[in-house]
């Protein structure tokens, strides 16, 4: 992206990153195996919300998840204290998972980059339906690896074969036994 790139009304660069239209299974599997702790921005305390489902499932799969939600700071969800911002959380984390809208993802990404070195963040993940190419471009320029428009729970289930239990097309064809990304 050059300095002369056009800008949208919101001031964000108009960017379209073709390499985010598709992610190889190897890439997703590598990230899910490497990540031990991640921050979930937009974690909900309401147990019927998708973010709660994802957090609970991934906790069972061995991830530590640090919930970030300014409106619920100081509260607790699934045994973890909720923090108001990435900077306020005392933990190190390998990844930030954005459970907010595509528009909000841009400012959250800037915050992720600002906390990258302090927290040891390597990966930026945006949830299913969340895609912000200008944000991804910023993050990649800062050395983060980015996944957008995917759910880590669904991807974990897909790669380990559990999603197939529901008759969902994993698109995985192999004569090898499927293993959890954590195994």
């Amino acid at each position, binding site marked *: 992206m050059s300095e002369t790139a056009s800008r949208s009304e919101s001031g964000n660069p108009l960017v379209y990153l073709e390499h985010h*239209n*598709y992610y*190889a*299974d*190897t*890439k997703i*599997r*590598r990230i899910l*195996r490497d990540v031990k702790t991640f921050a979930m921005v937009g974690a909900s305390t309401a*147990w*019927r919300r*998708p973010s709660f*489902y994802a957090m*609970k*499932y991934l906790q*069972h799969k061995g991830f530590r998840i640090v919930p970030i939600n300014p409106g619920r700071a100081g509260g607790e969800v699934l045994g973890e204290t909720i923090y108001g911002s990435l900077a306020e959380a005392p933990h190190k984390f390998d990844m930030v998972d954005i459970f907010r809208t595509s528009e909000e993802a841009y400012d959250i990404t800037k915050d992720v980059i600002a906390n990258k070195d302090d927290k040891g963040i390597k990966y930026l993940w945006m949830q*299913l*339906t969340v895609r912000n190419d200008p944000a991804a471009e910023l993050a990649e320029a800062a050395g983060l690896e980015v996944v957008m428009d995917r*759910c880590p729970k*669904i991807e974990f*289930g897909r790669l380990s*074969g*559990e*999603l*197939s*239990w*529901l*008759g*969902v*097309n*994993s*698109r*995985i*064809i*192999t*004569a*090898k*036994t*499927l*293993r959890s990304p954590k195994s």
Partner: protein
Amino acid sequence: MSVRTNIDEVTSNVPGEEGGPREFGISTIAVHAGARPDPVTGARQTPIYQTTSFVFDDSEHAAELFNLQTFGYVYSRMTNPTVSVFEERIAQLEGGRGAVAAASGHAAQFLAAVSLMEAGDEFISSRNLYGGSLTQFGVSFPKLGWKCHFVDPTDPENFEQAMTDRVKFIFCEGVANPGGIILDIERISEVANKHGVLLIVDNTLASPYLLRPFEWGADLVIHSTTKFIGGHGNTMGGILIESGNIDWFRNDKYPGMSKPDNAYHGLTFAETFGDFGFTMRTRMVALRDYGATLYPTAAWNLLQGVETLPLRMQRHCDNAQAVAEWLEKHPKVNWVSYPGLKSSQFYELGQKYLPRGKGGVFTFGIKGGFDAGVKLIDCVELHSHLANIGDTRSLILHPASTTHRQLTDEQRESAGAGPDVVRLSVGIEDVEDIIADLEQALAQT
């Protein structure tokens, strides 16, 4: 293509991280999709999990499963490991996101209807359907408060004319039973889209080897897997596949998908499960409550059959083409309705939608009408006289005296099942033997 050296490099559809997806061919999918070696025993063939129920790890695990918060098997009315292999296999063959198997094709149609409609709702259907579907839609569904508008599907404008505010979906057989009709699915999908309703295509006669309706705009695909998918005439089954491209929030026609579900503590299926939300809801609501479940052993039989779908289907098509060409020249045959013949009004649509072959089922008109049709069927030796299609064996039927018997004369004519109509489901035997049998039987009419 990179060399696969260990499990971490299992790439499914990928040559490498820098490239795009590499799609597997349909014959590979037919053999492999959904089935992986058993992680405990190493069994390569899919085991038959002939069990009703599955133990929970603990109470918390049970609660999570009942809340749909984690993946796992509970009870075979909804999910079973043998059945789910079959579901994934067909979902991938069709290029869809997910699938729910059912006890029969009719059961799959019911699950779709009950998942999309409330009492008082309506749908539009092609009138060129399997006779049993005409009865299901026209006689039984109205008892549940669902109204079906039947239209001549050969002009897509007819779907537009029949549209009402209460219509929830358009239904059609892409290749219609009993005879040689191919619909312009792409244009019908434009009508459905314009009105924000779903297009359901019954793909039983073509199978995904010949036609993948999602590529032409269908939202849901249905099969009677009793037919070409299973292929051997030994097992009943049905399946409902979701494209993964449905925007449930574009209007308020589908509150079951786009509004919170009280039975699941207010979760919204289209939000929580995204592009496979309809598969989840059909399974966890319709299958749970109506119980039209596919049996594990039946799923296993169907898995055996579908492995050879591409081989069989090509042979069905090649044989059918030869038989149709032979019949067209026979002096006792008035007409042949097969889209692989240039005389067919559906020849052009066949070239567009079914490039690999025009299917194995078609009709012809015998000179001498009803009586000659009955006589022909009594005289065949190799052809089996029965009410099924898509068997390895060649099958013959006189719809007017069997499958379409319960309809009025007018309905029979409009469904392509008039008194002189004979339906063939051409098998995979040697084509010379199929033709010889028809020749000796026609000689006796």
